[in-house]
Every structure is written in structure tokens, then in C-alpha cells.
């Protein structure tokens, strides 16, 4: 699969030429590494090839194979071959990654030099990370990273994470169904309105339920409305944030989304969140069988495999659907997450109505990388990260759905590149537009990047799961979460949390 990139040379060249000085002719042939050609850049193959780290060892912890784990292993092997270093990689499932990194951190054990992890843990990890040296922040790759992903990597004004992936939640849907007159008529019959790409979560639920439980693609298997990540402890908290954000994030109200920054009072049980949860609960009836326990992988298989009409979360399901051997290639579209026409205003304590739905794009956490402060090989570690995300590697990785590497540089938001991979123009356009517009929003929601984020999110996921399972009502469940959050705040300390949370609010309130 590595050598699948075909006909994209021109796209690559164009993409690369946009930001970089013309390519210097490279003496060596690096195509054996699976890249089409070495591209100019600070840490390109030629540059790394010139380094000699023989006799030294680099320990890397990363996610399980294939998402992020596979490109890590791939580039680690290349790096080892180029520099003579020994690179050991350990792959850890998401649920266990935090503790695998945190235990050595806390006990002062120098276990890993390079870490790949979820960017929202920055609140917990920042004390243990080495800042990215200037040589790398000025590298060709880094200067191309979008502002919002640079922001995500920054803590108290210092870049301590090395961006290597871009992440956001957005809506994916089946264009073949939405554009099918027969289906449009069917929808009109059922609801009395025209079939459009959902602009609010109420609409999303409605469309999903109409197209659930019958075989609308004639493949002999039943189809369903919506695939969502709903399994507790498996990233489900992010799905909930996506759903609740437009109801709870008022464009005119700053000072915190999850907490009131001043008082550090949790706002998780305010009406906006409750409404989001109620709609989440309601959406379950349009899930495929077992949909209530879908993890991300199930969601990807379900939408990417053509079982469901719509889905929202990271890029993976979309890329999966667009793989060369996919049955629904070029039958999918991307759109911003649905919004809300009623938004809770916590300053006035009222619902405000919006003519045009309020959108609150969730700049959800994604994969990021960093170098441990304890590492004795920081230069080599940063060289590895720089190499990992060099121009040639990045373009290679973007093309492979299971790698989980998604656009995070300005050069990636180029429709022609994606068309070069065999995507139809309108599919590529909808993808690129959706992604880049999120960068421009001023009503973005970020993760709760504070110490103990794991506790907050697992508490929230537990509450949401209880509501989804029908054990509690939405309000009861979130009241319980709010109570636990207050306890956690007490335990960790409100001041300490506020300092950290201010970093997040600054991003949300566009103060940078």
C-alpha cells in the first residue's frame, strides 16, 4: 500500500513550490522509502542522510497501529537507516497511552525520548516537555503550519509540542443519497421539507432517522442514519462536545466554555450542554446495530464502509471512504458541523435565537508530538520529529487513510493535491473548504487543556454514557458530572486550573 501514490507528482510539486525555494537537485534516490521524490525542506531526506547518529538510541512511544502508529514505525525505520541510529518504537492503545507516558514522567524515569500523544494532554505534560528549539520553529515545515495548530502546540507562549497532524470535527455525508431525487422525494414525504445538508443538530437527527433501517444503497444490507463515537472511554467525549458546542458556545460571550474562568464554576450542566446531550440521546435511534458502543474504529468502518448516511468526527472516516479500493469513493461530501438556532447565553441566563445557525467549530484535540525534557538525545529527537513531518513524508502520509495524518499546513488545503489522488473535484473542494473555513471561525471551541483533563473528560464521558444508556436523564447525568467536576477542581486547586485554562480561553476568545 505504501507505493500507491500515483499521478500526484505534479500536485506535490505545485504544493511544494508554493512555499519553498525551488528544489535543489538531490544526488541520492530516496524513492525506495516510498516517497515519490525527496522534496526540498529543512529536514528532507538528503539533510537527514547527512547526519550520523550511529551508536545512539532513540526511544519512541506512539499510538497503536495503524493510526499514527504505522507512520511512526515507518519513519522511525527510515530515520534509523539514514542516520545509523537505533530507533525503538512502542505502540500503545489510546486508552492506555496517557498512563504509559505519565508514570515515567512522574517518577523521573527517562523512558521515552519522543512522544506521540493527544494534544489535549498538554495541560498535564507541559512540565515534562522540552521546548521546541528555534532552529525547528523556523524550519520550512513549521512555518507552513496553520496558526491554530501552532496555537495548540503552544503553552504559556512557548512552543512545546511539535505539530504533525491536524484535527477537527466536521460533518461527513453521502452525496449520492442527498443528491438522489428519489431519496429527496422520500424525505419530503416524511418530513414536509427539502432534503438539505443538516445545518442544525435537530435537522441532523431528523435526516438520520428518516434514512435509518432500510437498504437505500441496494447492496442487500440494511443502512442506517448516523454513525457516532458513543462508546465510553473511547473518544466519545469529543463527540459530545461537538454536539453541545453550538448550543453552549455563545459567539458574544467569552470567558470560558467548560468553566467560568473567573470562578472556575463548571458550566457542564447548563441548558446548552443539556440540550446537546438530549439530542445525542435521541440520535441513538438512527444508529446501526451496536451503534451505542461504537468506538472511532467502528464509526470509520460504518461510514467508510457505506453502512451509514452521515457521520461526524475526525477525518479518518472520510479518508477511508475515499481510499482507492472503497466502494463509496467520491460519493461523500464534507461540511461544517451542524449548528444551533437557539444558543444559551450564560450572561443573561436566557436562550438567544439565531436566524443563521450558530456554528461553534470544535478544534478537537488531535495527535501531536513532543520531546521529553529528560531525554538525553534532544537534538536527535527533534531531528526525528522534523524528519517525520518533512514535506515528502507529510504528503505521503496524508494520502493513506489509516495513517490518521490530516491536513495541518496551509499547503495541505489545496484541492488540486487531493484531486491528484483521484478525488472528484467537488469532493476535494468540499473537503478543503470545510477544513480551511474552520481556521477562519472566531467562535471556535477547544479542548479543556488543563491538568487532570483525563479526570474531567472521563467523568463527563461517564455521565454522558449513563444518559445514553437511559440510566439517567440528561439533566441528572450532567448535574452529576458538574458535581464531580467541582470536586476535581477542589482536589487539583482552582488557581492552578485557572492558570492553565486561561491558555485555552485565550485561544477561544481570539486574544492571540
Amino acid at each position, binding site marked *: 500500500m505504501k507505493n500507491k501514490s500515483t499521478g500526484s507528482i505534479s500536485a506535490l510539486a505545485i504544493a511544494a513550490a508554493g512555499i519553498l525555494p525551488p528544489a535543489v537537485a538531490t544526488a541520492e534516490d530516496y524513492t525506495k522509502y516510498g516517497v515519490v521524490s525527496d522534496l526540498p525542506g529543512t529536514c528532507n531526506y538528503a539533510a537527514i542522510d547527512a547526519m550520523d547518529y550511529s551508536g545512539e538510541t532513540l526511544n519512541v512511544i506512539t499510538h497503536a497501529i495503524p493510526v499514527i502508529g504505522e507512520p511512526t514505525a515507518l519513519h522511525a525505520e527510515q530515520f534509523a537507516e539514514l542516520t545509523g541510529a537505533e530507533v525503538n518504537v512502542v505502540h500503545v492503545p489510546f*486508552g492506555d497511552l496517557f498512563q504509559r507516558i505519565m508514570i515515567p514522567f512522574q517518577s523521573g524515569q527517562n523512558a521515552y525520548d519522543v512522544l506521540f500523544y493527544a494534544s489535549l494532554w498538554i495541560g498535564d505534560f507541559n512540565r515534562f516537555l522540552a521546548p521546541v528549539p528555534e532552529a525547528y520553529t523556523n524550519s520550512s515545515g513549521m512555518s507552513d503550519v496553520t496558526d491554530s495548530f501552532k496555537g495548540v502546540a503552544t503553552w504559556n507562549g512557548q512552543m512545546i509540542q511539535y505539530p504533525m497532524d491536524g484535527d477537527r470535527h466536521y460533518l461527513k455525508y453521502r452525496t449520492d443519497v442527498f443528491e438522489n431525487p428519489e431519496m429527496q422525494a422520500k424525505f419530503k414525504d416524511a418530513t414536509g421539507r427539502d432534503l438539505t445538508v443538516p445545518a442544525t443538530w435537530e435537522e441532523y437527527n431528523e435526516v438520520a432517522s428518516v434514512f435509518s433501517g432500510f437498504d437505500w444503497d441496494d447492496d442487500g444490507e440494511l443502512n442506517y442514519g448516523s454513525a457516532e463515537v458513543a462508546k*465510553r472511554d473511547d473518544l466519545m467525549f469529543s463527540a459530545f462536545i461537538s454536539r453541545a458546542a453550538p448550543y453552549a458556545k455563545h459567539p458574544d460571550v467569552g470567558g470560558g466554555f467548560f468553566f467560568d474562568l473567573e470562578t472556575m464554576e463548571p458550566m457542564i450542566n447548563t441548558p446548552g450542554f443539556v440540550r446537546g446531550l438530549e439530542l445525542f440521546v435521541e440520535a441513538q435511534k438512527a444508529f*446501526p446495530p451496536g451503534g*451505542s458502543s461504537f468506538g472511532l474504529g467502528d464509526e470509520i468502518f*460504518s461510514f467508510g464502509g457505506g453502512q451509514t448516511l452521515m457521520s461526524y468526527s475526525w477525518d479518518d472516516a472520510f479518508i477511508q471512504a475515499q481510499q482507492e479500493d472503497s466502494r463509496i469513493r467520491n460519493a461523500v461530501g464534507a461540511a461544517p458541523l451542524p449548528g444551533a438556532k437557539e444558543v444559551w447565553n450564560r450572561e443573561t441566563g436566557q436562550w438567544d435565537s439565531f436566524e443563521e445557525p450558530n456554528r461553534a467549530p470544535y478544534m478537537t484535540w488531535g495527535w501531536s508530538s513532543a520531546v521529553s525534557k529528560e531525554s538525553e538525545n534532544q537534538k536527535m529527537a527533534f531531528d526525528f520529529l522534523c524528519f517525520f513531518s518533512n514535506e515528502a513524508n507529510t504528503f505521503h502520509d496524508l494520502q493513506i487513510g489509516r495513517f490518521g495524518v490530516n491536513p495541518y499546513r496551509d499547503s495541505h488545503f489545496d484541492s488540486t493535491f487531493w484531486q491528484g489522488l483521484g478525488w472528484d473535484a467537488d469532493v476535494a473542494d468540499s473537503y478543503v473548504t470545510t477544513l480551511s473555513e474552520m481556521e477562519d471561525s472566531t467562535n471556535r471551541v477547544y479542548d479543556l487543556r488543563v491538568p*487532570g483533563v483525563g479526570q474531567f473528560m472521563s467523568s463527563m464521558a461517564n455521565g454522558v454514557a449513563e444518559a445514553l444508556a*437511559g440510566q439517567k436523564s440528561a439533566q441528572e447525568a450532567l448535574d452529576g458530572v458538574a458535581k464531580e467536576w467541582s470536586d476535581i477542581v477542589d482536589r487539583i486547586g482552582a488557581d492552578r486550573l485557572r492558570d492553565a485554562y486561561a491558555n485555552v480561553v485565550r485561544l477561544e476568545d481570539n486574544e492571540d
Partner: protein
Amino acid sequence: MLKPKHFFLLPALLTLAAIILFPLIFTVRVSFSSWDVYQTGLDFIGGRNYARLFQDTRFWESLLRLSGMSFITVTLQYVLGFALALAVWKKMPGGRVFRVLFLVPMMTTPVVMSVIWRTVFHESLGPANDLLSMIGIGPVPWLSSATGAFISVVIVEVWQWTPFMFLLLLAGLVSLPREPYLAAAIDGASPTRTFWQVTFPLMAPISIGAIIIRLIEASKIMDTVNVMTSGGPGTATETPSYYIYIRGLRDFQVGYSAALSLAYLVLMIITLTIIAKLLMRFLVGKDD
């Protein structure tokens, strides 16, 4: 003074003590600290963690759930294991093949097999629902409903550990003395009566041992739950050890999870001791 008898016991005792004592004492100490993701190390916060534990309904509910789950799984394992052992006890064609097959599941890694089972129970892509739909049962919410998830975990536990019961009980059956059976045959006792009056009482001691060991191991169930359901949906399959795991390593509340662990340990030791005594009294009729 060192006597020969110390040569036997001391190496193992000292080794185990050396390995286990520090962790145990350390855990006790940690349970009085607020060690968490931010505050590393051993401060002293008195009994706050223990006070919190008594308020923690999620912990107590998980304990209740565990008692239900272990009762059901261990009973099923015992009954099925006994039935299978009786069935292949006497020589029969193909008997040895069955014996080997029936032993295999306990040899497999729970974490690995749970991953496979999860694909089996996958509600739209797995074979469980596919096969059931052939006989018109359909789609069972294996992992997405509280009952379904509970049953799935029970099925996997029964699959994995019935062989354990089978092995112990079969080994017991093979070594039973012959005389009582002759006596029963002379009395003309029916097979059923022979079972209840001869086999079962003779098997009581080994049964108790097997049940207790299974209860001990079943109480630690974590890998299976973690892989198959992550304790969900809701908290429907959350067991104490998995809950402690969430608190300790997911949330990284090390201090609190130490308190939970110790409370759990004490409760388990008390409960298992009582169960052992009760089983002795009911099955053997003696109190020792």
C-alpha cells in the same frame, strides 16, 4: 537457628516478602496522600481518600455487580465443567480429542481472546448476530445494551474458564476410589442416586478448592471488560478492579485508587474467607 526445615520454606517466603512487602506498605502510605496527575509524591491528607470512598456509589455499585457476575459465571463454570467432566470421564471413542479441546480456552490469553470475541459480537459485522439472524433472531444488542454487554462478558468468562473447572474436576474424578461405586452398584442405586450419594460427596473437597480459586481469579476480572466493553454501556459492566484502574491510571488519581485498592483487598479477603467456610459447611458438613 536454621534447621533443615527452614531450607525449604525460607527461600520462597523471603523472595515473596521481598517482592511484595514494599508495594504493599507503599500502597498503604499512598492511600493517605493526594497523589494525582498534578501533585506527585507523598503528602499527607489524613483519611480524606477513605472518606471519599464511602461516598463513592460507583465503587459500591461495581462491587455489587462483581458479586452478581462472579456468582453467575462461577456457578455456570462449575455446573458446565462438572457436566463435561462426567461426560468424558469414562473411556469413550473420541474422548481424548474432546478432553484436549475442552482444555484449550484456559490456555489462551484473555486480552487476546477478548479482542477476537469483540469482533464476534460486533453487532453488524460479527458472526454472532449473523448466525442468529439465520434462525430469525435478530439483531441482538450485544455490546450496546446493559444486559447484552453483561451477558457477553459472562459468555466470554464461561468460555475461557469452564476448562479450569473441567480440568480440576476431571482430575478429581479420575482419582476417585472404586469401592464406593461397587457398593452402590450392589445396592442397585440408579445413576442419579449414585451421583448424588457417591460422586458428589467424594468430589466436595476438590469442588470447594476449584470454586474458591475461580472466585479469587474471577474477582480480578479486568482485561476482558476493558477490551470488550470498557465497562459500558453506562457503567453496566464496570467491575471494581476496572473501576480502580480507571481511577488510578486513566484519571491518575493514584492516592485515591490506593485507598480503593486496599478497601477492596480487605473486603475480598473477608468475603472469600466467609465463602470458603460456608462452602465447607454445606458441601462437606464440617467446619474447618
